[in-house]
């Protein structure tokens, strides 16, 4: 277990193993996102209330759900950095923030494009789900600016870990906002326990497929940018020189 843990912290080991994962992950991502998109745009029947705007939700639900994984990931990576001084964990935490900002922004944009039809409004300041998701976007921007303002050292890792913990509290608020304050945004209805299936299997099967694809995409994007960071930080290592010469 500890040998494995120490290995995982080695940038070289991560670079090699992730290089072997990437083709499989990419293939699975293209298949799941491609299939889900074609299915959603061509085959998904219109919702009796929303018409074809229900197709927006396939993307919105997948991206929004995945966006909630970023701050917990950054908090765990931050804790590992602070406790075990693992360089790799710090690189993952750093590179997750820009991708998380993209995810949060797309969640807000797709939500607005759906709400403008169904709710008749693009934005509602009194809705807790909308405002807490906007807060998550700003927190991501905060982490990115902290990283660029402070040099990569213990201080910046500590500051970002602290912001990530705040982000985790906000994730809980986002998740339960629709139950605590019942304003505009509806609770999840795709899969309900007890047979109260509002949307029917066509909707949630395609959405689950999209969620799988978007999670794979998150992993691939994060691995690609972390590998770049490894090459930059270890540029004087012999194995990095060999990669440069071979390609």
């Amino acid at each position, binding site marked *: 277990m500890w040998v494995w843990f120490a290995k995982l912290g080695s940038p070289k080991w991560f670079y090699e193993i992730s290089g072997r994962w990437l083709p499989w992950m990419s293939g699975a991502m293209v298949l799941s996102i491609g299939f889900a998109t074609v299915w959603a745009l061509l085959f998904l029947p219109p919702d009796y209330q929303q018409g074809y705007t229900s197709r927006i939700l396939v993307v919105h639900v997948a991206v929004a759900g995945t966006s909630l994984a970023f701050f917990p990931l950054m908090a765990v990576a931050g804790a590992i950095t602070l406790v075990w001084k693992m360089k790799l964990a710090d690189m993952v935490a750093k590179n997750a923030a820009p991708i998380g900002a993209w995810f949060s922004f797309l969640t807000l944009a*797709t939500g607005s494009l759906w709400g403008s039809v169904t709710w008749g409004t693009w934005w509602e300041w009194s809705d807790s789900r909308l405002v807490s998701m906007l807060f998550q976007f700003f927190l991501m921007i905060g982490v990115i600016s902290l990283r660029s303002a402070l040099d990569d050292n213990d201080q910046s890792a500590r500051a970002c870990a602290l912001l990530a913990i705040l982000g985790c509290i906000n994730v809980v608020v986002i998740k339960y906002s629709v139950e605590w304050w019942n304003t505009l945004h509806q609770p999840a209805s795709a899969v309900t326990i007890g047979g109260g299936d509002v949307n029917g299997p066509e909707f949630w099967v395609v959405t689950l497929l999209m969620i799988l694809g978007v999670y794979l995409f998150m992993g691939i994007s994060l691995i690609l940018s972390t590998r770049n960071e490894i090459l930059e930080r270890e540029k004087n290592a012999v194995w990095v020189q060999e990669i440069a010469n071979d390609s």
Partner: protein
Amino acid sequence: MLSTIQFSSFSDFIDMGGYAFNVWAVYGLFAIFLVANLWLPLKKRKSIIRNLKRARKGQLQDQ
């Protein structure tokens, strides 16, 4: 389970039951988001490797 194609013509498909702007804007943004977050790190990788090669060449010339 798998229902049939919902549209009888291509213009029907583009129209999305009257919600063309909203539906296509979402899928357009989604496509940009996917391509950008894969293309940008891949582009950066190319420039890192180019710089590594250049630095290596410089070292060899110095020797």
